[in-house]
């Protein structure tokens, strides 16, 4: 498509020290051909309003800081090129989490849920000085779920999470999956117990929003179904 020289950037603003409610600010921002949404946000902050607030770090889709609701979908601002979006870019914080300021949401509850599934290897000590052996097939079994960067795009796109904020959510289940299906781990039962709780895997309604939202291309719904199937088989 032809290169636009400016875009209309519509940002949801909220300053808890001044505002009672979020409101919208629209800015006309110059853009370059290969710009990503993060570049446009940064330029708006630098040129027009230093108080525009958002998280960012690696700027190439591996740290998970800048997941935002962009033109109605959860995406990483640093992985989304402006030319894919047309003349108006609407940016809001991830839905379903408390807003701290502007585009920044409170992530503590999200990370608390991640920690609740015991996302770490539990295994008996190994004899000798070498590594544990694992076949390439065993390694492949959980490859997809090792890619998660905990950006929260999936969990905050999930209607079940919006309806029931206690739901542990897709991201936590993905990270449980990563260990449940690791041949070296000995703690699958405990994780399956946690996830068979009423706020565990059963809240998934397979809407596939999470799969669409994942910037890492993880087949999240498949992972959730594998975990729920492991629970069912066990019972």
């Amino acid at each position, binding site marked *: 498509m032809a290169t636009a020289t400016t875009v209309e950037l519509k940002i949801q603003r909220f300053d808890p020290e001044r505002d009672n409610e979020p409101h919208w600010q629209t800015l006309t921002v110059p853009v370059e051909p290969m710009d*990503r949404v993060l570049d446009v946000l940064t330029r708006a902050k*630098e040129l027009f309003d230093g108080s525009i607030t958002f998280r960012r770090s690696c700027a190439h889709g591996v740290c998970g800081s800048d997941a935002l609701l962009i033109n109605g979908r959860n995406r990483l601002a640093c992985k989304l090129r402006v030319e894919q979006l047309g003349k108006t870019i609407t940016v809001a914080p991830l839905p379903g989490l408390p807003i701290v300021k502007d585009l920044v949401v409170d992530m503590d509850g999200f990370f608390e849920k991640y920690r609740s599934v015991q996302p770490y290897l539990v295994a008996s000590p190994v004899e000798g000085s070498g590594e544990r052996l694992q076949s390439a097939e065993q*390694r492949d079994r959980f490859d997809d779920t090792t890619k998660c960067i905990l950006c929260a795009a999936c969990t905050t796109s999930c209607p079940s999470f919006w309806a029931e904020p206690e739901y542990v959510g897709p991201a936590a289940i993905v990270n449980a999956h990563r260990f449940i299906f690791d041949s070296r781990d000995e703690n699958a039962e405990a994780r399956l117990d946690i996830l068979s709780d009423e706020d565990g895997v059963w809240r998934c309604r397979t809407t596939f929003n999470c799969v669409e939202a994942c910037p890492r291309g993880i087949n999240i719904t498949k992972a959730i179904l594998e975990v729920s199937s492991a629970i069912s088989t066990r019972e």
Partner: protein
Amino acid sequence: MSAGLRADTTHIDVDAIVVGAGGAGLWAALELAREGIPTAVLTKLYPTRSHTGAAQGGVCAALGNVEEDHWEWHMFDTIKGGDYLADQDAAEVLAREAIPAVIELERMGLPFNRTPDGKIDQRRFGGHTRNFGEGPVRRSCYAADRTGHMILQTLYQQCIKAGVKFYDEYHVVDLVFEGGEADQGGRCSGVIGYKISDGTMHVLRAKAVLLATGGYGRAWRVTSNAHSLTGDGMALAWRHGVPLQDMEFYQFHPTGIVGIGILLSEAARGEGGYLLNNEGKRFMETYAPKLMELAPRDMISRAIYQEVRAGRGIGGKDFIHLDVRHLGRKVIEEKLPDITDFARVYQGVEPISEPVPVQPTAHYAMGGVPTNLETEVLADARGNVVPGLFAAGEVACVSVHGANRLGTNSLVDLLVFGKRAGIRMAQICKSTPQPGSVQGAERAVRDELLALSTRPSGVRPAEIRRELAALMMDNVGVYRDEALLGAAVKGIAKLKGEYANVRVEDTGSVFNTDLLEARELGYLLDTAEATAVSAYAREESRGAHSREDFPERDDAKFLAHTLVWQGAAGAPATKIDYKPVTITKFEPKPRVY
């Protein structure tokens, strides 16, 4: 509640503090937890956002899982790769301890790729050779091309398991010293943390403080580094009288995405990728006939500049091609999935069918806060220790990388010396009394932060940052000379003058990134100054420091580490000292590949 800060201050006592939650900080925290030492880990991000996670290609250790290998070969490669500036006792520790560190990571759960017999798989990487330089060796242990991501995740997971106390999104804005600054025999006794979500100040007191804050790539316009890599730990130590070591040695990685600098891993060349000029020729034949595309990074970055200067850049422009097409779809998608995605997303290029345009990108600081082998920070060229202060990972200069770091050795460094830091800090914590409480320790930095947001008018920080990044790119890049570096030193001094009048717009106390980015710009100016001053003084070419006016390595004058101190009261840095390189096994030789 105003001007970016709140009036209340919280005081917290622990035994150990870790600043930064990348690989080095996390492994140190894990060792401290194993010893039962009360520890606080402060990070200005969430731990999983740290830049260790961006490392792609692998971590070298002479496991010998797929072919014969020995830690002595790894040690030699590290020293030769560093153009004989690495301290050889440190390089020995690095190469020896890489082996148990990688094994331990596997035991912690890191999902390495596997060989057919179930062991950790290994692949080739730049500058890593068999039998002291005969040819490439398979030494890099990897998890697809997201090895750093898996290291970061695995160490964080183990920290959760061990109950490590994290202070997420706390920006460390100052260090606390008692009994004078580092150059007056003082001791580091804590840090000042600024809680980003509400603007409160936290004074943390401890017996041992670890700097694990990473590098400062954001001083350059084209960089692979995260926005958060602004030299915080180096600048804070420098301001308290700690010298910075070997800052002139800054690595440009040869294969960054054109214009924006995002890295396309050396793994692409480790798997067999080519570098081609506009004639379609593998130009590394001319520069490193034995190792070709697997020559060290400094040599390849220079070769690209030479090709471009000779008019052999693609389309006559300032980039060349990285070509992986001959590897086939299976290898590209299975072993290089992330960088394939980067090329598609950020350049609109399909690596399976097209060559990818690349150019050198500012990547890694070989220099930093000087330490001994136990990660204790050094106050001078004689090896005197700064009590209470430690550094590990990219922020530190042990020195294991010398004048040029080999690929994967950054991960090896942060594993080996992160672990060593935790062990040494635990020993110190058990044998040292708690320092006295320093009343009002936060006052100085509070005043500095207030000044940024209460000036009635002033320059926007972004303007200075843009100028600095352009200046460093043009004048303190791959090739340098006296005129370029002299202009850089002057230019940075001018920008520092303007920074004294900088003003931020956001005056709130909740998540004030405007204020913190202005603070970070101050760190960038300091690290840039240390870099330019050190580079100006080193009249030779060695590793990543290439002086066109002094093209040869000069061992008679410069087989030595640079130490540079900050000038007094805002004056430019002028105090420089040199300390000898530790040579144990390998006499310096000409560096040919």
